[in-house]
Structure formats: structure tokens, C-alpha cells
């Protein structure tokens, strides 16, 4: 099947994942059309992050199939999946702490520009890598901190860098795992703007707890409860969905907001 003919960026078919005897994901089906901003919500421990880990190749599903642009990802390593055009961020900040902000981003663009494992070329002479990295550094608003070691950034800055590393390689499918976790209201509003800009024209799949972020960004929302996708709908549809309200009993007010 030609990738261009496929309408869906990511597709999960009856995916299951057990850790030992514990079923974390029980039969998850999900279709993320190309170019959509898609959010996954659900109570704590519902398996949202596990879904991301399955899609990005960190874990392998126990059964079922995961497709990226119609191509099965089963058995592929994270770096192979990344090379197919899928990039992800992490809930717990996952950066290169001793490298500068600029170097963090530059590392993230090297593979996509075809430099691979080159040890015969001077990094500083790779103009395209430098320009692309500088563009991303500017986009994520860290130009002032360009040469600071990433480990010394503030929390919000590290979260922005986390997103920068994810999008720098130009992947068409972006997975963001709770991009605004732990942020203040104003920081999280900035993060939403940032996500909107950097994922323009791409497929975005994100896990998020902050409902204002979800309803502000997403075209479609899937609700995951106990390892199952119980509903997929537009934000308005999700708000009105009784099953979702039931599942969210404790946080129902939040949904109504």
C-alpha cells in the first residue's frame, strides 16, 4: 500500500499489552487521521502513557497491530520508528542535560538531514543543521539560553526544549506526553501556543490532563479508561458523552468547565 494513499497517520488495531499478569491495555482501537490534532484523555492509570510507549516502540504490544501511515510498526525499534517519521516527547523531561540548548536541538536534526554516524565531517560546517537548529531554538523561545547547558534550564524551559527536540527532526507525526504537566497557567498557555505553531500541518497525538489545553487544541478526543478506548469524538461530543462523564465521575466538574 502506498503511504500517500493512506488517510490515517496512526492506527491501532486490537492492541493489548500485559505486564506479567496485569492487563494494562485491553483491546485498544484507535484511528488518528492525517493532519489532525488528537488528544487522549483518561483517569490516572488508564494506560495513556503506555499507549504512547507502544506506538513509539518503547514497549512491544502483547498482541494486535500498530500502523504508521499504513505500515506495521510491530518489531521495530524506537530509532527505526523515528526514522519513519514519528517523534515523541516524554512526560518526565528527557533531554541531554550536559549539552547546550543549541546542541540538544542540533543532535535532534542530524539524522533527518542524513548525517547519520558521520565522523569525517565537521559539525560546524553543516550549515543546514545549524540553520534548522537555530530556527527551532528561536521557535521554542530559548534563543537567549542558546548556550546554556540544558540541565541548568528552568522547568518550563526544559519542557519547551523537550518539545523542540521532538519536532526538530521534522517528523510528520508528533506524540506529546503531557506537554504542560507541572506548568503554571500562563506557562501552559504559552506551551499551547508553541504546540500550535510547531505542529502546524502535522499530525499531533497528545496525552493531556489539563482540560483547557485539551479543549483548546484538539480536533478529536479519545477517552481511555482501564486500558480501553471508550469513546472518540469531537470536543463537544466528548463533553456531552454520558459514558465519559460516568468514567470521570470524580472530575466531572472539570469536564463541564
Amino acid at each position, binding site marked *: 500500500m502506498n503511504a500517500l494513499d493512506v488517510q490515517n497517520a496512526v492506527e491501532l488495531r486490537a492492541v493489548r499489552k500485559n505486564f506479567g499478569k496485569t492487563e494494562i491495555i485491553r483491546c485498544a482501537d484507535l484511528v488518528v487521521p492525517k493532519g489532525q490534532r488528537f488528544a487522549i484523555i483518561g483517569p490516572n492509570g488508564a494506560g495513556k502513557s503506555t499507549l504512547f510507549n507502544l506506538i513509539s516502540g518503547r514497549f512491544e504490544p502483547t498482541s494486535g497491530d500498530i500502523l504508521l501511515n499504513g505500515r506495521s510498526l510491530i518489531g521495530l525499534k524506537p530509532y527505526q520508528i523515528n526514522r519513519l517519521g514519528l517523534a515523541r516527547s516524554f512526560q518526565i523531561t*528527557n533531554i541531554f542535560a550536559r549539552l547546550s540548548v543549541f546542541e540538544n536541538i542540533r543532535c535532534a536534526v542530524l539524522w533527518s538531514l542524513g548525517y547519520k554516524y558521520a565522523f569525517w565531517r565537521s559539525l560546524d560546517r553543516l550549515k543546514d543543521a545549524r540553520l534548522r537548529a537555530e530556527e527551532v531554538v528561536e521557535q521554542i523561545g530559548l534563543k537567549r539560553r542558546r548556550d546554556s547547558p540544558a540541565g541548568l534550564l528552568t522547568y518550563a524551559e526544559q519542557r519547551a526544549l523537550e518539545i523542540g527536540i521532538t519536532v526538530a527532526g521534522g517528523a510528520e507525526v508528533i506524540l506529546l506526553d503531557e506537554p504542560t504537566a507541572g506548568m503554571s497557567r500562563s506557562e501552559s498557555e504559552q506551551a499551547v501556543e508553541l504546540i500550535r505553531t510547531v505542529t502546524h500541518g502535522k499530525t499531533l497525538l497528545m496525552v493531556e490532563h489539563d482540560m483547557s489545553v485539551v479543549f483548546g487544541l484538539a480536533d478529536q478526543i479519545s477517552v481511555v479508561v482501564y486500558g480501553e478506548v471508550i469513546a472518540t469524538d469531537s470536543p463537544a461530543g466528548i463533553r456531552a458523552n454520558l459514558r465519559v462523564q460516568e468514567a470521570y465521575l470524580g472530575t466531572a466538574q472539570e469536564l463541564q468547565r
Partner: protein
Amino acid sequence: MSFLTHSRLHVSGAWLIWGTYIAVLIVAPWVFHSNLALTVLSQIGAFAIATLSYNMLLGQSGMLSFGHAVYIGLGGFIAIHTMNLVVAGKFWIPTSLIPLVGGLGGAFFGVVFGYVTTKRSGTTFAMITLGIGELVASSALTFPGFFGGEAGITTDRTLGVKIPGITYGPQIQVYYLIAFWLLICTAGMYAFTRTPLGRIANAVRDNPERAQFIGYNTQIVRFLVVIIAGFFAGISGGLSAINFEIVSSENVGAAVSGLVLLFTFLGGAGTFVGPIIGAVVYALSYVLLSNITNAWLLYLGLIFLIMVMYAPGGISSLLQMNLRVVRFGQWHRLRLAYLVLFTAALPLFFGVTTLIEMIYALQLDVGNGTVTHVYGIELDVAHAVPWMSAAGVAILGAFTAFQGARYFKVRWDSVQRDIALSMAKAAA
């Protein structure tokens, strides 16, 4: 990875550093021209290539290897066998290029062993390198044809293919050969830090998992780095083969691996020049310290211990931090603190070293009677008074050193805080 400073060097600054480096390499044997000095300088040169190559693993890629001597030593064996083949007329290569043969040997074994070791990272990697090191060291006695058994393989460096005018008879010619290769290797390894693979190796060191999610197979990254480090280690081994005209099973053993690790760490794994500093310290401690005292290995161990606990960045990081204090114009605030620290530590130093020397005199020098000289003072280790005095000085010294260190730490921390503050202001 920066040279010594975190800021990016200006082009003129880079020329200045490399110019000085070349000048030092050329001038060193004019200043230190005794036979002993030339031998020491030659050893520093060969060892510096070894520590620099080791730091490609430890400092740049986060791989703690306990078996680096395997690549140095096997490179040396390949080199010395090649030299003997040339002498026998079965092969042709000028002696000046023998180190390159050693390098290719090191890279070859990097491919063979690196494929196994880099399958895993972290602690498992360290354990596998230890195992490979033991494997190679023990096989030295199993394959006497290659390793030369207990005696090792010898050669005569003057019998090889010569470039006119260079016989490699006088040590000075060997020194310049080593200096030449040291320069080439330093440039090569520095250039490596500024290539895509070199930078990705840093990324793998910092966060191997994330490196996978930006498209890199971390196993291949580590494998390639081991091969390249093996190449430079092999060059170092080839130079040692020419320098000593002998390579034996000791050269692949755990003791050498340990030394390379220890002095790379002492010099500083966090900077590019650290390993070179480590190599200089190595030669000085071997030649000078061992002449002063029998207990020099013990002192070396103590220094290593203190560095691991209080200055894990090694000598180069100590230099770097103090240079930063100077650059921010805060040095005057630390002058007194340093004076206090060293004065307060002095009694501890004298007390402990005297005790150690007396123990050594008691245990090792029994044939020479019970009287020994420490710091020019005559001490009879058969009597209680010297012991009690030395112990008294040590105990008093421990107290003053503790107080001095506390005073210093307060001053140091406040200076560092102010520097961090003014850096944050500059960034804003």
C-alpha cells in the same frame, strides 16, 4: 566538548592554544634534556594518546571500560610483530609509520571485542570489558607465539626501514616521533569531538534512551566509538613498542587498564585536555614520587580517593572552576581562603605522611635498622615517642583541616553563588 572553557573559542584563541601546544612539544626536550627526562617525556607522549583515547569512551560517550589496555597492548603486539617482519625482510614499511599499523590493529580488535562489549551499556558494559580484559590477559600465556610467553616480544627499532637521517638510535629521535604522533592524534581526537558522531556520542552519554527517539541506534554509536578509540589506543601501543622495544603480556593486563582509567579521571574526564594533564601527572608520579618514597602507590591511591570524593571533575575541572573565578574578578575573595585551607591542612599532611613513612620503615626497611628519616628528621620507629608525636600532629591536623575546609567551603560557595547570579543576569 570544550577545550577548557565553556565559551566557544575564537579562531585566534584556537590558533594560540594549538601553537603553544606545538611549541611545547618541540621545546620540551631542549629544556629537559637529560636521558631520564627524554624517557619520561616519551612516556608522557605515548600515555597521553592512551588516556585521550580512553576519554573518548569515558568522558565523551559515558562508557566505563576496565579493559582499555587490551587495545593499547594488542596494538603494540601487532606493531612489534610488524617491525620484526620488516627486519626479516618479509614486509616493508618505514619505522615512522609503525604506529599506524598498531592503530589499525587496535581498530581491528575494537571491531572484534567492541561488537561484544557494546551490546550492553552501563554496568553491564563495564563488566564485559573487565571480562574481555581478563580473557586477553590470560590468553597471553596460551598463545606464546603471538604474545611471547613470559618474556614478551622484543625488537630492535634501529633495524627497520629508515628515512634518511633518522635511525631511531638516539632517544631524542624517538621522542620527536612520539611528539609527532601525539600531535596528529590530539588533532584527530579533538576533531572527532566536533563531528556528528562525536556529538551524538555525547547525547548517548547524557541520555541513551532519548538518543533512540531522535533516530539513533545507540549500540552502533557506542560500537563506532570503541573502534575509533581502539585505533588511537593502538597507535599509543605502537609508539610504546618502538620506545621500549618490547611488548609483553603485562601490556594487555588489568593493571595498565586501571592506570589509564585512574589518570584519565585524575586529569579530568569532563574536558578534552584533562587526559593530557593526567598523562603528565602519571609520568611525574611514576618518576619523581617513586624516587622520593616507597609508599608512592599508597599516596596515589589516597589522592585518587580524595579527588573522587571532593573533585570528581579532576584536575582540569579544578583549573576550570578557578579560572572562572578569576574571569569574574572574584579571585581576591578566595586568596585568603586558600591560604587558610592549605595552612590548616599542612599538619594533617605532615602527620599522616610521617605515620605512613614510619609504617613503611617498620615493615619494609627492617634490614636498615629502626632509624629512618622523614622530612629531614631522624625518627626511631622502635620507640613510642615518634609514633605518638606523629599521631598527635595528625589528630590535631585533622581538626584544623576540618575547620579550614569548612571556612573555605563557605567562601567558595558564596563566590560561586555570586558568579551564578551575575551569569544569570548576563543571560537576562
